[in-house]
């Protein structure tokens, strides 16, 4: 199973609820998905120039999970590692008003409603992983180094 990998990069935004939901849904997929090995890439490290993270994203398929329409994780990943295999915008699933709620919740304060949101977003991530070509999971579908010819 180890060679079948997919990266999941969450924005984990700290300013709004959507960021918390993006993070927790990503964690849920990482903790529970068994068909392929999901690997989470630490976005700040990835953006700070983490070589392992960037190389992983160049070889294996990556799904980005963003809490709001700014889509920071998607934009940044595509800047450094080429096109992503799928992207989830949490605000499209839980509604913009919920996603942009500035009262970011801590894990200990999650309600049943938040848990339902997390489950829905996690389901969407799993669906996207299921849509990726099987060859890509093994790193066979190398989709460019992302250097843009530089």
């Amino acid at each position: 199973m180890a060679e079948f990998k997919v990266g999941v990069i969450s924005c984990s935004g700290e300013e709004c609820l959507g960021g918390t939901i993006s993070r927790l849904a990503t964690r849920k997929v990482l903790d529970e998905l068994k068909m392929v090995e999901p690997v989470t890439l630490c976005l700040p490290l990835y953006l700070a120039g983490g070589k392992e993270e960037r190389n992983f994203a160049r070889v294996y398929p990556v799904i980005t999970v963003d809490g709001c329409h700014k889509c920071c994780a998607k934009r940044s990943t595509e800047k450094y590692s080429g096109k992503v295999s799928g992207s989830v915008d949490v605000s499209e699933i839980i509604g913009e008003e919920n996603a942009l709620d500035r009262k970011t919740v801590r894990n200990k304060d999650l309600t049943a409603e938040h848990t339902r949101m997390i489950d829905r977003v996690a389901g969407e991530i799993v669906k996207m992983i299921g849509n990726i070509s099987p060859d890509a999971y093994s790193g066979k579908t190398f989709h460019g180094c992302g250097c843009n010819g530089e």
Partner: protein
Amino acid sequence: MISMDSKVKVIPCSGIGKVYGLMAREAALKTVHELCPEKSEPVCLAWIVTGDQEVKDKIEGRDCITVDGCPKMCASKNVSDAGGIVVEEIKVLDTVKEHKGEKFGSASQLDGCGEIVVSEIASKIADRINQEK
């Protein structure tokens, strides 16, 4: 009431792979929402690193406290690069070291001792904010 612009920006790394990233995030959120809501606010690190002008305007030349879960110090580096003035670099591991042998939970969920350490880190952040304001 302190204006949003003059609030101290608290920016955790929110690293997603290990419990220390979660501790950084939880400590930052506890500070801005429970301990110092009038004097501090969070700013998304993922947004900062996009280089968008709107977020640059928000932190450039402003007092920022970063909270990092590992020695790579991604929050501190990225905030400095974006022009924020890092008045304090909080390292989660400094507080963790004071609790040798304890378990803190996982990257998904803190346990009891994890919450205790988060409270200690949040107090350190709040103390620093209160020095500023």
